[in-house]
């Protein structure tokens, strides 16, 4: 308990630190910080009391024991204190709480977080906490225990990365990524290891005792770029997606190389001899580890997809399947010492398209949020623990070894990247420029994986373990602090292309698809089985067999373009409403207006009474569509959409909002006509039925209708609206007169169900901004019906 007291006290001081940094903020934030401190104070008081009373109760227990012989009955304890039995979960919760509060704190200080990456700050916090624990002469808990790290902290981050992996750019650059990940890492390991050995030999200190194999082992530990560190830093610099995926992809895929090299050298260092056979076995082992990992991942991914096909009656546990299967994939891979990271990536990437087609929108949102939350917390904890472990660990500082490690890491990385790019560029259509190479080399951050691997070394085999750990930590700190902090200014200085939020038009989408077909055709004519050819083959196969097998039948036939078109319409409608156009939406416009009925030149709609459509829009639905489109739209080589791990959706309204309004005002009438040209389904069409089913698990007793209908359904009416109630009533009849007509593309305008909105012209803008915020922030108020469906 005493240990915890200290820990809590540190928490408290951490809070104070935060407090100090946060002073000068506005009042509500200040209040929040006060609250934080209060919570922590409370937390620190409780265990104090707990500690004393535990010992007291112990004594009492002893007394009671002796008194048993005296047959005196002890009074029933009204209030008992037993801290011991909640100790572990309590401590874990405290750590997580600390991590979350720190994260919260940094975002309250925008200036600090714009200069220093979060990862650096977290390490500093870790150092402080560790230092304070040490000052209090308490035993530091073994926070960055390797087992804990690999089993619990790492998987969420990797799964998050794998699940949201931008497949298209990843596949297009797979060759380059593999080159960097495999050859690059090998090169780094051997270069660093070899040269370090040389240096150790010529130095006259006790370093000469280190053999070649431990050096190579060290090289293999330190050479791998760390996905956690890369993600943390690259997310903040908003680099263009090509570079992002190159560095990040490398950091993910080099896991297999690291695992094999690590086990290989560890084994050999203990044995002390290497034969050619061992080398060959190493190569084979690499293939087994990498491909085996992918195989495990893909297998579990397909299982997850298959399972999600049948979950339509138990929507509540849908997200759990996704998590469990991927975690199982990771664990299963680890059982055989295969690459767990590869397994997770493969699992996430494989299951995603099918799962997303199968599960409900709410489940999908849940998966998304949960993944983001878990990975975010894990990442924070990892960095804090890294700091704590640094203070805690025994260090043996050797100037030559440590400085040479840092220097060699940098040199090896630069040579590796430049050399490999020279080869790769011969095969690439989009060449990597010198700037790109620089960023790739500079972005090679090392992180907690290296530390954990070093931590795993056995003291009795490696007497230089402490020195290794010190060197590893130094390299990690150097890369995370120096490189991590300078990369942002450098990116700006070099004017490296940033990621661009691309807004696609329907024309672009049509033409891009057209081009894809065209290129496939031309490749066929040339008899060249290239990129497009195989992609086409895969798509065909996917469409013909896999989708049918894994996706609930009526959803498997969705053409991309329709999905895109739908999304466009949706967005337009939202924007229209936001920009004030919605206030002029006709309340009495029949939702089934078809293009034939209202011609573009026909503007009577604009004069109709006001209405607000927005609040009825289900947030989950909207994001679902957005996501589908994003996944469908990664079609061009260059215009790559970036994604951010901790931001769920890029908010299209945040930047250039005023522009948007201006543009919208100007084009309002045009938009209106666009909006009204959507033919809508009859209320009782099969698609409507399904849309409703998807959004409302309570109505699962109604059979989903299979009619070969395209699936993206957009209905602006929320289930609460009277309109949809009416629809639900009509569903019964719908079963009877099922039509096979394709009514897939439907856009449901809310009927006369919503409250009128006639804000004054001056209020208009503020009102709109509020709306935007409400739309972009998925708070509980955004869709209040969220909690209902979780009833059995």
């Amino acid at each position, binding site marked *: 308990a005493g240990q915890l007291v200290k820990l809590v006290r540190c928490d408290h001081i951490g809070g104070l630190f935060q407090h100090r940094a946060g002073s000068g903020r506005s009042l509500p934030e200040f209040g929040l910080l006060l609250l934080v401190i209060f919570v922590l104070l409370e937390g620190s008081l409780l265990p104090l009391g707990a500690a004393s009373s535990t010992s007291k109760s112990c004594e009492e227990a002893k007394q009671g024991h002796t008194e048993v012989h005296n047959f005196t009955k002890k009074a029933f304890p009204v209030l008992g204190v037993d801290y011991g039995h909640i100790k572990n979960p309590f401590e874990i919760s405290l750590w997580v709480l600390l991590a979350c509060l720190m994260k919260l704190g940094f975002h309250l200080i925008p200036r600090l977080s714009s200069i220093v990456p979060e990862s650096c700050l977290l390490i500093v916090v870790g150092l402080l906490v560790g230092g304070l624990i040490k000052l209090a002469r308490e035993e530091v808990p073994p926070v960055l225990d390797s087992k804990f790290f690999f089993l619990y902290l790492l998987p969420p981050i990797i799964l998050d990365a794998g699940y949201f992996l931008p497949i298209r750019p990843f596949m297009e650059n797979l060759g380059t990524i593999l080159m960097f990940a495999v050859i690059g890492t090998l090169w780094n390991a051997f270069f660093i290891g070899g040269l370090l050995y040389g240096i150790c030999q010529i130095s006259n200190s006790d370093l000469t005792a280190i053999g070649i194999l431990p050096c190579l082992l060290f090289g293999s530990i330190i050479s791998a770029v760390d996905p956690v560190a890369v993600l943390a830093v690259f997310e903040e610099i908003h680099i263009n997606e090509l570079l992002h995926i190159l560095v990040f992809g490398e950091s993910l895929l080099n896991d297999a190389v690291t695992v094999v090299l690590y086990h290989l050298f560890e084994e050999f260092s203990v044995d002390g001899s290497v034969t050619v056979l061992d080398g060959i076995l190493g190569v084979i082992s690499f293939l087994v580890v990498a491909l085996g990992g992918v195989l495990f991942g893909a297998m579990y991914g397909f299982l997850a997809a298959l399972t999600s096909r049948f979950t339509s009656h138990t929507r509540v546990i849908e997200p759990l399947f996704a998590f469990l299967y991927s975690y199982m994939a990771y664990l299963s891979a680890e059982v055989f010492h295969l690459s767990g990271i590869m397994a997770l990536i493969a699992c996430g990437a494989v299951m995603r398209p099918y799962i997303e087609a199968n599960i409900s929108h709410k489940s999908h949102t849940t998966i998304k949020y949960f993944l983001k939350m878990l990975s975010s917390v894990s990442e924070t904890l990892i960095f804090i623990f890294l700091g704590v472990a640094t203070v805690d660990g025994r260090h043996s500082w050797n100037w030559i070894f440590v400085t040479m490690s840092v220097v060699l890491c940098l040199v090896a990385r630069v040579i590796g990247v430049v050399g490999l790019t020279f080869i790769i560029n011969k095969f690439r259509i989009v060449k990597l420029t010198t700037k790109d190479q620089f960023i790739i080399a500079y972005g090679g951050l090392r992180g907690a994986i290296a530390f954990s691997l070093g931590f795993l070394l056995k003291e009795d085999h490696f007497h230089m373990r402490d020195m290794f750990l010190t060197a590893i930590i130094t390299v990690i700190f150097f890369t995370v602090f120096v490189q991590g902090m300078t990369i942002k200014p450098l990116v700006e200085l070099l004017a490296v292309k940033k990621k661009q939020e691309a807004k696609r038009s329907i024309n672009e989408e049509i033409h891009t698809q057209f081009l894809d077909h065209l290129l496939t055709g031309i490749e066929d004519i040339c008899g060249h089985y290239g990129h497009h050819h195989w992609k086409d083959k895969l798509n065909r196969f996917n469409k013909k067999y896999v989708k049918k097998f894994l996706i609930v039948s009526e959803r498997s036939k969705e*053409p991309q373009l329709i999905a895109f078109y739908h999304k466009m319409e949706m967005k337009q409608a939202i924007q229209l409403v936001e920009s004030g156009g919605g206030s002029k939406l006709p309340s009495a416009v029949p939702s089934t207006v078809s293009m034939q009925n209202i011609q573009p030149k026909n503007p009577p709609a604009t004069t109709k009474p006001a209405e607000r459509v927005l609040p009825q829009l289900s947030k989950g639905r909207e994001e679902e569509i957005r996501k589908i489109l994003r996944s469908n739209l990664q079609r061009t080589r260059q215009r790559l959409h970036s994604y951010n791990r901790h931001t769920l959706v890029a908010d299209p309204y945040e930047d250039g909002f005023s522009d948007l309004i201006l543009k919208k005002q100007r084009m309002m009438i045009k938009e209106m006509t666009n909006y009204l040209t959507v033919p809508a389904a009859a209320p009782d069409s099969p698609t409507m039925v399904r849309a409703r089913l998807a959004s409302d698990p309570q109505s699962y007793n109604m059979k989903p209708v299979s009619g070969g209908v395209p699936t993206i359904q957009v209905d602006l009416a929320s289930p609460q609206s009277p309109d949809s109630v009416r629809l639900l009533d009509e569903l019964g009849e719908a079963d009877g007169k099922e039509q096979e007509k394709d009514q897939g593309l439907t856009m449901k305008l809310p009927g006369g169900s919503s409250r009128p909105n006639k804000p004054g012209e001056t209020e208009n803008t503020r009102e709109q901004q509020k709306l935007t915020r409400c739309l972009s922030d998925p708070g509980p108020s955004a869709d209040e019906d969220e909690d209902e469906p979780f009833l059995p």
Partner: protein
Amino acid sequence: METALIKYLCRFIKNKNTKTDNLILFRYSFTEWPDVKESSIEATFLQKSSRHRLMLSSLTQSAVLCVSVSSSHLLRLYERFESLDRENRGHLRKEDFQAVRELSMNPVGDRIIGSFFSPGQETVDFPSFVQVLAHFRHTENDRIRDGAQKEPANSTARRLKFVFQLYDQDRDGKISRAELLQVLREMLGMQVTEEQLQSIAERAIQEANQEANQDKDDAISFDEFRKSMEKVNIDHKMSIRFLE
């Protein structure tokens, strides 16, 4: 003259009845395949045949030819051409293209085939075959094209034009609504209703008109087309590594 030469050239390289001692080395350039490296243009001809020598001299005189393709690429294309031309007629018919299985499954396959045939012609010979494919050749941006009088086929503008003409089947300079609908129908197949197609086409045309701030006609002009393709990196998209 030029086109005939290419044919001969390829036949001779193909037939391989060449002997080193009586070979002459000469440079050959092909307008549609811009490549600055002149050293890569090597082809071998039989010295024996005076007829060929004659052609040769006339060719070298034509200084127009400034750009070139490496013989190996041309050879590869010629081999492909011959394998498509199963009856060895020296030219391809539409049926030859349709015999490619994958192409017959391609939703826009017929359009692609059509693009090889200039209007009114039933056949396509090797030079025009190459000329169409030249649109898909990858360009090195950093290389300076020297002395190219004619804009190469793989320039952005000509690529755009090529794609545009795939839409614009009646070649009246704009994509009419009917033409757009036709393309959409081909690409989307049976999965969507006519009404949906209509609304998408409607939307696309309106959008194109808006973006380019152009007249509100019921069609997409080339300018509007180009505008909407601005964000698509067509140079990278329309490159096939095989044709480098």
